[in-house]
């Protein structure tokens, strides 16, 4: 049995030249299993929508109903949190949700979960926060300070509140990245550990004698794996959804700066 951590190891699939970027150092552009998983996830999303919108009829087919269902689900989410101005962020949130969902779900079917790589979740989180900051500065200019200085609070409270707001803002990309990473990592480790119990207890039972006691344990572990797998499907969807919701919430902070609703 391999270690439960083995599933997270990066393995090269297609070697490509290493690029040396001054200031950043050498970047190995080889295609590895993580990149493969991302590509596969993106391909699946594109393939799904290509099929769903192939006919694009007023009276939709089955796939189109699903595609439009996902579409309006995120559309309502963005419009509900950000308001009518949120429409221009819809493609970004939609992409984020679908990409994360596809990577999470693929991780349950294949051997590698791209969202269990901190590099991936951190990049997604940083990208989201860069968009938030970039758009916020572009739109609000110097008024961006209001993000950390809530209106209608006496000055002596601001001394306390402003550092807290700044810290919470700085921690946003960290929590965003770690939430998804931790959920995926923990879920897959737990699955692997329980699955390992099934095998090792089964092997013990195969030895006969007292080892036969391992059979109920193995059965219990197998039940645990089944239950955990069901739970992981829920988590796969939920974490993609949470990421999308939080991206909307953070975008809303800078889109509707100063007037909370």
């Amino acid at each position, binding site marked *: *049995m*391999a*270690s*439960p*951590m*083995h599933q*997270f*190891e*990066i*393995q090269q699939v297609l070697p490509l030249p290493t690029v040396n970027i001054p200031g*950043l*150092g050498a*970047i*190995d*552009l080889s*295609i*590895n*299993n*993580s*990149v493969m998983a*991302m590509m596969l996830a*993106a391909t699946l*999303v*594109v393939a799904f*929508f*290509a099929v769903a*919108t192939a006919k*694009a*009829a*007023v009276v*939709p087919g089955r796939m189109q109903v699903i*595609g*439009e269902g996902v*579409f309006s689900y995120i559309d309502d989410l963005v419009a509900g949190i950000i308001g009518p101005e949120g429409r221009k962020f*819809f*493609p*970004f949130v*939609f*992409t984020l949700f*679908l*990409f994360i969902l596809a990577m999470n779900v693929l991780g349950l079917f294949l051997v590698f979960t791209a969202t*269990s*790589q*901190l*590099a*991936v979740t951190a*990049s*997604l989180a940083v*990208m989201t926060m860069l968009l938030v900051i970039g758009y916020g500065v572009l739109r609000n200019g110097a008024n961006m300070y209001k993000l950390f200085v809530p209106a209608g609070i006496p000055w002596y409270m601001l001394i306390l509140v402003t550092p807290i707001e700044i810290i919470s803002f700085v921690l946003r990309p*960290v*929590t965003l990245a*770690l939430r998804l990473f*931790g959920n995926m*990592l923990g879920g897959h*480790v737990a699955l692997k*550990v329980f699955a*390992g*119990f099934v*095998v*090792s207890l089964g092997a013990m039972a195969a030895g006969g004698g007292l080892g036969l006691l391992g059979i109920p344990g193995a059965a219990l572990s197998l039940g645990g794996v089944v239950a955990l797998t069901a739970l992981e499907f829920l988590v796969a969807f939920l974490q993609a959804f949470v990421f999308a919701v939080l991206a909307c919430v953070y975008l809303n902070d800078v889109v509707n700066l100063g007037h909370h609703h």
Partner: protein
Amino acid sequence: MAAETTSPPPADLRDGHTAADAQGAAQGHGSAGTTEAAAHGGESGGLPQFRFEYWGGQIVWLFLIFAVLYVLLAKVFVPKLRRIRDERASTIAAAVAQARSVQAEAESHAAAAQAEIAEARNRSRRVAADAKAKAATDLALSQKAEDARLQAQMDEAEARIRGLRDQAMTNVRGIAVETSQAIVQKLTGQKMTTAEVDAAMTAQGAA
């Protein structure tokens, strides 16, 4: 488990498990500890996620893939879906509007038919009333004419009866005169003239 045969550490499950726990503890101390754990993870070979030589490639590829996916979704699929949804909404709105107009038309038709029925009813009522009135006047007229005819006949009959009576009364006087003459002649043997008798009767107050 794709590359199980190539996995370098043939550690048994328990070892792997405890190693996992240790690694989990190492990185699990919240966000603050992450960077330190990450910094150490690179060389100590802890969580595979913290081997930073693989970060650059993953990040570059992630941005590339995300960009391609974003462009495809934003430029192709989202407009397509949005268009079909708008189209459906407008189709439904048009159908509803058409149904509403058809309904309004049907209602106006129904109202017209109702008015027509009411008018026809009024007309028939008027015709009936006219006929009734005409019949009544006709009846009254003919009754009057008949009444007048009957009255005339009655008057005529009455006049005839009166004439006959008068004539009878004059006859009675003549008979009385003759009778008186005959009685006087029988009793006295002398003859009375008609004029005398007549005078005597008038004197007696006979009619």
